[in-house]
């Protein structure tokens, strides 16, 4: 081990700062002070929304209602301050504090650097150069399905995971779980040692102990041996389990997955008579109908699907085609928020809509019944016609939460319109299939009570927690573990609820520590190669099964190699192996498409009754961030605002505001949920657009043995979930308890104090009217549209919207102030006195770094937020700090609504630092800790910062984050290994914010200078841009007119394009981060263009948000300052 590289500055705990210890919901937090939940007067809100003209955007219903309480909250001078900090200070206390402050300042000024050691290698590996990262291709599996990644390692420590561009499920991007899997590797609470009845054991002791029961079982041909696995696609494991079943024919192998895909297989069984895995080609799809399939976040290839889906919506470079997404859903999902037309119905009613659409398309056997309330036949006809017209370029898909019948209908519609073989193909199931996984726990529990189980081995799963409420699995497991002559073994990353009930617990290796393999959604196999030796005495599932088989080959590498060697006879195996490892995919492993023939559709009769407020429906869904609970101990994921609800650290009963009003509930009210004889207490969160008479509760919370970060938060949905209704249950009663529970939603955090121009949004038909000057981009700020049109010349700086160029000097900004930064100037000759012509191998002028965020591509998945957290060593703060607006994310996703309360459209807007050319934060810093670089970056120098927070007061975009406490962990050793060594970790009292990944820019500049060349477009990719599945974030040098065969950098081209606009440009901040307007493609039959009014945002007369309309700039500036802490 070489330790001479810097291991990350003043060490901190970016990830699991284990704040939960302090952050359990505590009494001092007065709800009204932290997050007001005034009773919403929906009538008043509706009136306000109707009273506005044009397209209005609002952050939340509270904002529209504009109650005095909400005003007070929003305009509070110190939204970041703890209530206890707001107490008046007595003179005595003041003197004490000041004295202590002086003394501490004096002491801290005399610190010496602690002595450091340099520890060189004994024998330095040839490939390792200290200070230079190495990249290895491997694969992360989520629910078994692989996503190819390139792992960055610094002298042997994985520090960042990026997507593998060669992998079909990644194409270079990743998702939140892949990013967070890095933190899981270093989680200090991972299980470290084998345990037997609570005492530490070694792996060898386990191997010896298991030998006797295994041999006994073999003598009786395996009867009584049960193996319960988590879902997997590993070909090696498949081969091992096949041998296991040969050797133990009487043994049972089962799969348990709380978020199973059984309905997908049941659907293809119903439609085609066999189990198949549908593979969708969104790139080819022009019209998409999703039947409750949240394919942008929850499907097995969500990253790839999101990429392809958004590629079909990119209307640049003169392209006029744009796909259209219809979403019929039983909850409020991210995919629904991105749909052109969304139909929210109770989950059980999705089938009725599917039947109606199928019938309209002439699918035999669809038997349409009565349409759910509020669904018009015209809508159905319009959708059906649109799908029919696009024939083979249509695509219909159903979500795993919907019944087999809905899946069968989707397959039938695809067949009817001719999509099969074009936008949808079918392959053999990629998962290892061992019967109905939804029923496995029931079988196992029954077998335990019938005394048919002698040895139970559970791998990866946590059924004691995730079992449905009607299956008493935990009790059965407990009794089995205490039975004489029985053996129970649990292998997993954590000593969780199941481990506590088993005799043996074996720590499982993290995927970055062990050899394995996995297949992607289309069958492509990847070798999972470790990036680091196991941190603890852990082993892989392959090694466990090899032990059970008493194999000679017992190490993971040899087991995996052996499988692939056998599978590829006659080839030069070493070449193949090397190729598979370097490319990240095994060549020629993509599953061949199967031709399918659909029989006549024989659907079971639908009995679903429409729900009422008294007998509501409940949808159980995987949690957006912690999934089924397996990510509960990840600080990054817990603190990541969940899609749509923006909640952190908790789940909640999500319902529509109307339903809440009907039941007399407001946000954060505790309710009793009664479903048959099962009850659960949970807090309420209102979500505009949620289907009525139906609630959604996500899985994964209320854990007891997840670890310090996962325990005790949220509400355990499994206590309500029954085997017969895993996804949707009806007959739910909701009873108010009168108690309250604080929920840390981030929707109001960092609210921009302008009501206009934050979102520009139009429809495809509006764009096609005038593609060069889309009308929705030029409705405001500058008055007459013809003025605005002048702005858009070919100046790539147009996004910075220099205020009103005078007519006689179109290029000279209308400002009294000198042009400060050399990179401002397009023409180096303009550089003026004290000139800064760039040297180095970069062309003149000096690079001007800039970013474009394409709102039309952003799906709001938050992958950028968590990738930034991983790259920049950003700390988590814990729930009580989030309640005080203190989360540290450098890039946040603002969520705006427009339209009606019942079914608003949503627009997601990622907001990092704008890197203003005239940054308001810079002149107010008394110590020049924040300053401007020659390349236009608003730099933050931590070691200079004294924590006055003036900069964050003065930032109109609210992107600065302050370390109110020592949020970074400086002590936990495993967390120190995870740090990006190129980024300083921040300590208490220091301001931080987005740096445009300055460490990556510096590295690219140094490498270019060393190679005596210019920095080319693509040399610098920020972490947020790299992770983005939809390429919504584009970063580069605005002054680069040489890259891409002379067309200039992508960011330069986009900034010169017609969609570009900046936020709050009326403040003359000249932001370097600009946005591209969002487009929708509504069906003109459903939504006639006339009804759409002016696109753009904020026609005159708007005062719904309660801010002045006359003098926009002044109001914005004032409001901005007033909203930050202190001035």
């Amino acid at each position: 081990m070489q330790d001479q590289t810097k291991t990350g500055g003043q060490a901190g705990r970016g990830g699991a700062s284990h704040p939960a210890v302090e952050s359990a919901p505590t009494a001092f937090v007065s709800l009204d002070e932290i997050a007001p939940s005034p009773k919403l007067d929906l009538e008043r809100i509706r009136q306000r929304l109707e009273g506005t003209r044009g397209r209005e955007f609002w952050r939340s219903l509270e904002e529209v209602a504009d109650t005095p309480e909400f005003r007070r909250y929003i305009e509070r001078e110190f939204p970041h301050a703890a209530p206890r900090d707001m107490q008046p200070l007595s003179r005595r206390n003041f003197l004490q504090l000041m004295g202590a402050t002086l003394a501490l300042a004096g002491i801290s000024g005399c610190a010496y650097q602690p002595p450091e050691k340099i520890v060189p290698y004994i024998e330095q590996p040839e490939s390792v150069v200290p200070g230079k990262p190495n990249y290895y291709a491997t694969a992360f599996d989520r629910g078994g399905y692989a996503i190819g990644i390139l792992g960055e390692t610094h002298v042997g420590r994985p520090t960042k995971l990026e997507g593998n561009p060669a992998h079909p499920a990644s194409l270079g991007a990743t998702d939140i779980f892949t990013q967070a899997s890095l933190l899981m590797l270093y989680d200090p609470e991972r299980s470290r040692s084998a345990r037997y009845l609570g005492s530490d054991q070694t792996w060898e002791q386990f191997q010896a102990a298991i030998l006797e029961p295994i041999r006994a079982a073999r003598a009786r041909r395996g009867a009584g041996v049960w193996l319960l696995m988590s879902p997997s696609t590993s070909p090696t494991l498949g081969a091992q389990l096949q041998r296991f079943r040969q050797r133990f024919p009487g043994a049972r192998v089962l799969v348990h997955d709380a978020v199973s895909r059984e309905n997908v297989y049941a659907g293809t069984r119903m439609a085609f008579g066999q189990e198949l895995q549908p593979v969708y080609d969104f790139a080819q799809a022009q019209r998409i109908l999703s039947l409750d399939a949240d394919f942008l976040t929850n499907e097995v290839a969500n990253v790839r699907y999101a990429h392809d889906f958004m590629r079909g919506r990119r209307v640049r470079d003169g392209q006029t085609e744009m796909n259209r997404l219809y979403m019929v859903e039983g909850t409020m999902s991210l995919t629904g928020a991105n749909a052109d037309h969304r139909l929210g119905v109770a989950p059980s009613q999705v089938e009725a809509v599917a039947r109606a659409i199928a019938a309209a398309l002439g699918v035999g056997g669809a038997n349409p019944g009565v349409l759910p309330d509020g669904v018009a036949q015209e809508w159905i006809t319009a959708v059906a016609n649109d799908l029919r017209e696009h024939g083979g370029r249509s695509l219909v898909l159903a979500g795993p939460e919907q019944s087999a019948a809905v899946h069968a209908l989707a397959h039938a519609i695809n067949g009817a319109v001719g999509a099969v073989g074009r936008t949808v193909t079918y392959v053999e199931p990629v998962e290892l299939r061992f019967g109905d996984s939804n029923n496995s726990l029931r079988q196992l529990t029954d077998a335990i009570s019938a005394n048919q189980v002698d040895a139970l081995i559970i791998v990866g799963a946590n059924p004691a927690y995730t079992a449905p409420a009607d299956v008493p699995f935990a009790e059965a497991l407990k009794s089995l573990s205490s039975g004489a002559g029985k053996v129970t073994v649990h292998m997993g990353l954590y000593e969780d609820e199941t481990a506590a009930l088993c005799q043996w617990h074996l720590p499982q290796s993290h995927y970055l520590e062990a050899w394995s393999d996995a297949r992607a959604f289309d069958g492509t196999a990847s070798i999972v190669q470790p990036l680091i030796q196991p941190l603890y005495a852990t082993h892989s599932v392959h090694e466990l099964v090899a032990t059970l088989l008493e194999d000679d080959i017992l190490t993971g590498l040899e087991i995996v190699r052996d499988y692939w060697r056998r599978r590829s006879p006659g080839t030069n195996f070493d070449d193949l192996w090397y190729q598979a490892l370097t490319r990240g995919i095994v060549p020629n492993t993509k599953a061949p498409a199967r031709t399918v023939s659909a029989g006549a559709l024989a659907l079971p009769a639908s009995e679903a009754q429409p729900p009422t407020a008294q007998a509501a429906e409940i949808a159980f869904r995987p949690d957006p961030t912690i999934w089924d609970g397996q990510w509960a101990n990840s600080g990054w994921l817990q603190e990541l605002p969940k899609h749509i609800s923006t909640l952190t650290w908790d789940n909640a009963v999500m319902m529509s505001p109307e339903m809440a009003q009907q039941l007399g509930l407001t946000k954060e009210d505790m309710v009793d949920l009664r479903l048959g004889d099962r009850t659960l207490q949970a807090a309420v969160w209102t979500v505009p657009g949620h289907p009525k008479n139906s609630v959604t509760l996500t899985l994964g919370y209320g854990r007891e043995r997840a670890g310090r970060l996962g325990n005790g938060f949220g509400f355990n949905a499994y206590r309500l979930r029954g085997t017969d209704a895993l996804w949707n249950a009806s007959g739910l009663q909701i009873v108010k308890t009168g108690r309250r529970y604080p929920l840390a939603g981030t929707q109001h955090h960092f609210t921009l104090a302008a009501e206009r121009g934050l979102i520009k949004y139009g429809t495809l038909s509006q764009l096609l009217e005038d593609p060069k000057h889309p009308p929705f981009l030029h409705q405001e700020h500058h008055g007459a549209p013809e003025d605005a049109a002048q702005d858009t010349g070919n100046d790539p700086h147009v996004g910075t919207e220099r205020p009103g160029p005078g007519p006689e000097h179109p290029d000279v900004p209308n400002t009294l102030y000198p042009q400060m930064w050399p990179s401002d100037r397009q023409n180096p000759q303009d550089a003026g006195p004290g000139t800064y012509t760039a040297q180095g191998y970069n062309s003149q002028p000096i690079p001007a770094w800039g970013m474009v965020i394409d709102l039309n591509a952003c799906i709001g998945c938050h992958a950028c937020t968590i990738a930034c957290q991983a790259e920049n060593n950003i700390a988590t703060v814990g729930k009580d700090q989030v309640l005080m607006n203190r989360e540290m994310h450098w890039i946040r996703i603002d969520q705006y609504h427009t339209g009606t309360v019942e079914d608003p459209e949503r627009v997601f807007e990622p907001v990092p630092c704008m890197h203003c050319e005239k940054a308001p934060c810079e002149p107010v810093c008394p110590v020049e800790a924040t300053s401007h670089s020659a390349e236009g970056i608003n730099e933050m120098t931590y070691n200079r910062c004294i924590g006055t927070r003036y900069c964050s007061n003065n930032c109109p975009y609210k992107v600065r984050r302050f370390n109110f406490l020592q949020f970074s962990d400086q002590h936990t050793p495993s967390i120190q290994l995870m740090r990006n060594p190129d980024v300083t970790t921040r300590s208490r009292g220091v301001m931080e914010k987005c740096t445009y990944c300055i460490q990556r820019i510096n590295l690219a500049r140094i490498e270019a200078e060393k190679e005596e060349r210019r920095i080319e477009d693509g040399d610098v990719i920020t972490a947020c841009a790299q992770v983005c599945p939809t390429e919504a974030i584009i970063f580069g040098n605005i002054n680069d007119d040489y890259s891409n065969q002379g067309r200039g950098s992508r960011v330069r081209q986009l900034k010169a394009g017609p969609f570009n606009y900046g936020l709050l440009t009326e403040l003359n901040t000249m932001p370097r981060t600009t946005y591209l307007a969002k487009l929708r493609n509504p069906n003109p039959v459903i939504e006639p263009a006339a009804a759409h009014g002016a696109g753009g945002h904020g026609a005159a007369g708007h005062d719904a948000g309660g801010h002045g309309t006359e003098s926009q700039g002044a109001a914005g500036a004032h409001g901005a300052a007033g909203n930050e802490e202190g001035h």
Partner: protein
Amino acid sequence: MAQLFHPSTNVLAKLSIVGVAAVVPLLGVAVYFFNMNYGAEVRVPKEQPVEFSHRHHVGDDGIDCRYCHTSVDKSNNAGMPSTYTCMTCHSQLWSDSPELEPVRESFRTGTPIQWDRVHDLPDFAYFNHSIHVKKGVGCVSCHGRVDEMPLIWKEKDLTMKWCLDCHRKPEDFVRPRERVFDIAWTPEEDQKKMGERLVKEYHVLNSFQLTNCSTCHH
């Protein structure tokens, strides 16, 4: 009410007037000392687990810097020689010298030698060796005449002011690339004239870019 202060406190009060007069210059002296890289341990040789002599290896034997510091022109980190690097020679030469026992022990047992860091920047300052080498900053400019140091010491104080001296006026320090590792080299011509030429030739960034905070702090 009793008297709060005893009469003797008058003396103390008078003395304190003198005291203030004495303390002010003392403070001045203290500030002066702090400004002189006090505590920076400049030119203080550091004890090391092996008494490795740069004077011997560089000065007497003429071994190139890059023989041991292999990544100095590739990476931010100059690199420290692995035990194997030492043993390439010392398995033959001085193979039973007691002073080399820690090296042999490391080789035998597989436990690395733990050297005490001499040039230690604060953790919030980032320095990249390779770009300095590329742009013609000689080793000697920062590390001094290591060929004359029996035990290595810090020649320069590595303060920010010292870094900026060169980042503001690189022409005062750059040298021909082929002389970067030549410790004893002195310019044959005027440094200023040569420096200005080399800064152009090597495309050294201008001082505005070189003195951005983020050049070193990120």
